[in-house]
């Protein structure tokens, strides 16, 4: 066992400085398109047409992007005349209802216990959620813990569009959480159904089944975006918003 301890010590500290400081290591986030002013309506039309999930909508002289629908297919980037601005970073999480959040932090203090539910996620969201436990992101230092039973949980972290067979387990899990409780939906599928829903076998996101408080867009959202979502629940970071307007990601919501 001693050699393992040694190995661990020799590896040193790898943990990110976020949320205390910034993190811009290469490869931590794929980035995302944001609302952009464009030069022509043909460019707008092309982008709107190219988007497979109707995340892009015309907005004044440019486009607005509904981040809940964006699935990172890069079709607004590759092979188009005028691509929208591609924004790096990862602070993507937003409150669903801007009026509600004020009382969240007071109830939970700084620590959260989290129960994860896979409601039909593709595995990428789950993999990213699992990464917040790895030494790079280490959620425990922020007071976030995963619990095996919803009975001890404050927050339900849900990924996936909610497949039919998962509707009941998801709502039962939500019921089993003691109040007050919060739901964080991670990924485009959880936010809008993504490429799968709504259809005969899947809903159009978590909100179809249980109330959602915080949404983390992305396909999948990188680990730091998920951490940002959890930090929003305890109000330790300001929110982003789910619609990014043509002016380039303004903070006001529609």
């Amino acid at each position: 066992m001693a050699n393992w301890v040694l190995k661990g010590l020799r590896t040193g500290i790898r943990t990110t400085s976020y949320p205390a400081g910034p993190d811009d290591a290469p490869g931590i986030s794929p980035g995302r398109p944001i609302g952009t002013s464009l030069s022509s309506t043909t460019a707008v039309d092309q982008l709107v047409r190219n988007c497979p999930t109707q995340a892009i909508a015309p907005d004044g002289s440019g486009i607005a992007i509904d981040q809940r629908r964006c699935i990172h297919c890069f079709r607004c980037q590759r092979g188009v005349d005028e691509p929208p601005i591609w924004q790096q970073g990862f602070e993507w999480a937003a409150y669903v209802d801007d009026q509600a959040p004020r009382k969240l932090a007071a109830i939970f203090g700084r620590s959260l216990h989290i129960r994860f539910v896979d409601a039909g996620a593709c595995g990428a969201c789950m993999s990213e959620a699992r990464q917040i436990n790895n030494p790079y992101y280490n959620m425990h230092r922020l007071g976030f813990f995963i619990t095996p039973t919803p009975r001890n949980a404050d927050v339900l972290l849900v990924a996936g569009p909610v497949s039919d067979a998962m509707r009941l387990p998801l709502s039962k899990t939500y019921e089993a959480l003691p109040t007050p409780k919060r739901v964080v939906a991670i990924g485009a599928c959880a936010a809008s159904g993504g490429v799968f829903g709504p259809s005969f076998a899947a809903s159009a996101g978590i909100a179809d089944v249980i109330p959602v408080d915080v949404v983390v867009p992305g396909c999948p959202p990188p680990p730091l975006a998920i951490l940002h979502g959890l930090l929003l629940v305890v109000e330790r970071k300001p929110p982003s918003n789910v619609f990014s307007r043509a002016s380039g990601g303004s903070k006001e919501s529609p």
Partner: protein
Amino acid sequence: MAVLYRIHDDTSDLASFLELCRVHWRGVVVASADEADNTCRIDCGTERLRDICQWLTDDLGFAFATLVAEQAPKNWLLIYAFYKDAKSPLVRVELKLDAALSVAPSVVDLLHGPSFDWHEREVEDLFGLHFEGHPRLGEFVLHEDWLEGINPMRRDFDANKRFEPRTTEPKWEPPTIVTAPGAFAMPIGPVFSDFAESAHFLLETVGEDVVRTIPRFFYKYRGVEKIAEGQPPDRALLLAERFSGTAAFAHGLAFCQAIEAICGIKPPPRALALRAVLAELERLRSHAAAITGICNSTALAVATSQAALIEERLLRLTCEITGHRYLFGAVVPGGVICNPSQTDCRHLTAAVGEITHELRRLLQMLRYSSSFLDRLEEVGVVTEDQALSYGLVGPIARASGVARDIRKVLPYAVYGSTDFSVPVEREGDGYARLRVLFAEAAQSAGIINKVLSSLPDGAICSDELQLRAGAALSAVEAPLGAAFHWVRLDNGGNVSRYRVTPPSFTNWHGFHLAAENFAFQDFPIILASFGLSNAECDR
């Protein structure tokens, strides 16, 4: 009959296999060859299906790949695909059934019957096509709240219509079969563990020892095959990539290869080489994740952290090279999207080299951790016979002595011309699976280096893609094993049938073999050593 021909059995190329087939089944079935696909097609009736399947699997040593059911206006088409090795052709046994009949013979009682089992159950559940002689048809993909008699894969079912659940509370009884004093079933899931995919396991036990495990899947059934229908290939590609996000590139690649086969185009050499590089990068990441899972299941904290560091490093590397941590959108019909620069390639080579070194160090340390080995050795054993009869694929099969790898058997991209080996272990236990994962990761790193060292220049995407009607079966070795994608395009160039047989579907079927007569605390380890994906299985 078969014995007579045994000595002459020559399946080594398409022509000789065709000859063999014609001699053996003279006047009974029609066999034809498709040179372009290296495929032999056998048309047969219901009465000969069992014999042919038996002949192919038991006598000639073919493995069952996939069963594709298609509903044409007047009849049912069932396609049983078989593969064997690099020299033998792909064999497609096609069975036409009258539309009104809806009954096909089951082949599950053959020696290799188990490999057909889940396919038949799935077709029965989704198409309402009955397989006569199958002992356990019924609720499989669609759970108990799905109305009886409604089959979503039928042509007349509207994929966009929201599902109406039963109004009455459906009945569900645990399908337990163990009778012993005090026997009971321990339910696990569908919501369980820290980060576990939704699936349900019933452990039939008398207390400490688990007698048998009954897994239940398809909690995550999103109807990918159904909602792909009627969509143009570039939209269907999104589904192909996203139904299993951790193997997005492999499945996207398989889908694109099928489209390319239908349309008769060949990607440029640089694209083929890059496909191999990216596929191996994904495999490397997936194997690192599986190793993390195994270390985690044995509660070896430092090793878990080390493996997780490697995994995250690979994710970041992938993002740097392709712009996305899970390779979404990296492959298109005709080629690939991302075109790494010289610098990127050097960076990739260097990083992969370091990661290989770290993996080797990790394995060295794990090998000398007796507490870790104690928990893996002789746990969750799958024997070679079981692996063959269940048609298991990927690292799990290779840990049980079955050296099948699609990259060797049905080479694609540049695997045919790249030198690599397929690691095989014989024990079939958790430790064998772990060793296979490490060895394959090392092979993947080797492939990346070899391919990058002689990366051709030129275009990365063929621009002559003309969609046309047709169907093709494509196969790739996804990180978890062989994946088969069957795509049929209609006259408008839209997908009219998409059938995926992912490795997790094949291998989850064999999970119960490993999860028998074990101590309860070994369950997470057996689960982790299989390292399968429910998203991939359930689709």
